[in-house]
């Protein structure tokens, strides 16, 4: 029973993905129509400057946002796990988790209002674009990093750190040689998650982006409103292969 439903779920998840991958090689101008084998849509993708530009912009924003999210989310998780009960702990926890559950449109609108208010008050940020999208994505990613780091720190306890301190390590040395190495897998996982969240976001980037900063998902979204394209199928297959490779390597390395 569970096996049948697992199979059904996998078919549901994979059906559209498999079809995109297969029709990426179709020569037909219409997507999801078979017109003989062809590589032409991969060539078309490589020769599409708008798409490439948007992809490079998205990768840059995702890498920057994920890095900032790890720094901020790491601090949030640390405070949640290690600072015990301080005044305002409940509010702190609620605010740290808020981006996880707030509807995207509300988060997007709220961050846009923040940037507009900041610009009026201080002159910064000067208009909206790459930097404001990056901050919005970092704010979302940090919430995810925080729960991962908090769970890891709570699971670790303080035994190893106390042992290092008893053996004469300074607090800085304890952090550098014991805590940080133990946290590193969680920080890496958090970085990856924040990176993927940023690469997949339409709503926050639409609210906080400007005319000069069109990310790949925003560009694809405006294309999909008109209809799917065979180029999009080729792009999906490339993304699928990259992710499968990364996933397989991660699984094999874990052994």
């Amino acid at each position, binding site marked *: *029973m*569970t*096996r049948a*439903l*697992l199979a*059904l*779920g*996998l078919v*549901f*998840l*994979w*059906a*559209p*993905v498999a*079809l*995109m991958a297969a029709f990426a090689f179709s020569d037909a101008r219409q*997507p*999801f129509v078979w017109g003989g084998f062809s590589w032409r849509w991969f060539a078309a993708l490589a020769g599409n400057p708008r798409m490439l530009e948007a992809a490079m912009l998205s990768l840059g924003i995702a890498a920057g946002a994920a890095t900032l999210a790890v720094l*901020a989310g790491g*601090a*949030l998780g640390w*405070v949640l796990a290690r600072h015990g009960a301080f005044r305002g702990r409940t509010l*702190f*926890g609620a*605010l*740290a*988790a808020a981006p*996880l*559950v*707030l*509807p*995207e*449109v*509300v*988060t997007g*609108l*709220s961050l846009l*209002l*923040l940037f*507009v208010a900041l610009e*009026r008050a201080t002159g910064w940020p000067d208009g909206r674009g790459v930097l404001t999208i990056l901050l919005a994505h970092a*704010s979302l990613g940090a919430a995810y990093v925080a729960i991962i780091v908090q769970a890891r720190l709570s699971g670790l306890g303080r035994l190893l750190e106390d042992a290092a301190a008893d053996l004469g390590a300074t607090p800085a040395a304890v952090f550098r040689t014991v805590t940080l190495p133990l946290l590193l897998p969680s920080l890496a996982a958090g970085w990856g998650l924040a990176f993927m969240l940023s690469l*997949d976001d*339409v709503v926050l980037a*639409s*609210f906080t982006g400007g005319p000069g900063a069109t990310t*790949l998902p925003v560009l*694809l*979204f405006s294309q*999909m*409103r008109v209809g*799917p394209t065979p180029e999009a199928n080729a792009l*999906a297959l490339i*993304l*699928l292969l990259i*992710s499968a490779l990364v*996933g*397989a390597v991660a*699984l094999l390395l*874990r052994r």
Partner: protein
Amino acid sequence: MIRAGAVAWLALLVAAPLLLVLVIAFAVPDEGLPPFRLPWASEAPNESWALLTADAFFLSALARSVLLAAVTALLCVGLSYPMALGILRAQPRLRAWLLGLCVLPFAIGFVLRMGAWIGLLRDSGLVNRLLIELGLASEAWQMLYAWPALLAGMLHSYLPFALLPLYAALAARDPALEEAAADLGASPFTAFCTVTLPASAAAAGAAFLLVFIPAVGEFVVPELLGPPEALLAGRAIWQEFFQSRDWPLAAAASVALLGVLLAPIILWQRLERR
């Protein structure tokens, strides 16, 4: 030091933006940039709240959104619960690969996946062509820009939000409990109902809410796949902001949406803390 930095981060990027939404919800639309006047700087009264509650337009959009999110969350939990159990009952060395197989489709951006559903479900799409070819339908069945496509897209987008926490919760339970129930003569079904299900009820509730809460405000999936006439809360906010440029009304609608979500959010945080 660390705490001060963390507090500053949350104050600037979470608390201040939400407070601003609350303030702008009482502002008055105005020509110019930004297109509003603050509540205390305008002689004209705020009309957003009267507009929101006056016609059934927004309230029914909100009700529809809650319904769509509840159905989506039920489908997600209903499907991912047996999927998680199925993975856990596989051989241990297969589990990570099966889980990877479940998560991999999400590595393709969800906009692209929604594009695939458009290609599959539209009138000239693959599913309709197949149905007609097989003689199961004489003419195209309209699924795209209607509820079937919308539900398929929502389920396809939100499944991992339910699957991953449910898998983690079910993997952490003690298998000895089920064995003990079996040793004491319980059938697999009885053992499931009396041991597994109660032990994972809180996790299932949390997974339901983790899908339900963001799904109420979903914008992209209904925009690409859903019926155009069925306006949802997320789309209403988007349209007020981008098309009508009525920022105070968009903010007031956001506050109303948050009001509806407040109880589920608090309940979710309680369940998570256990």
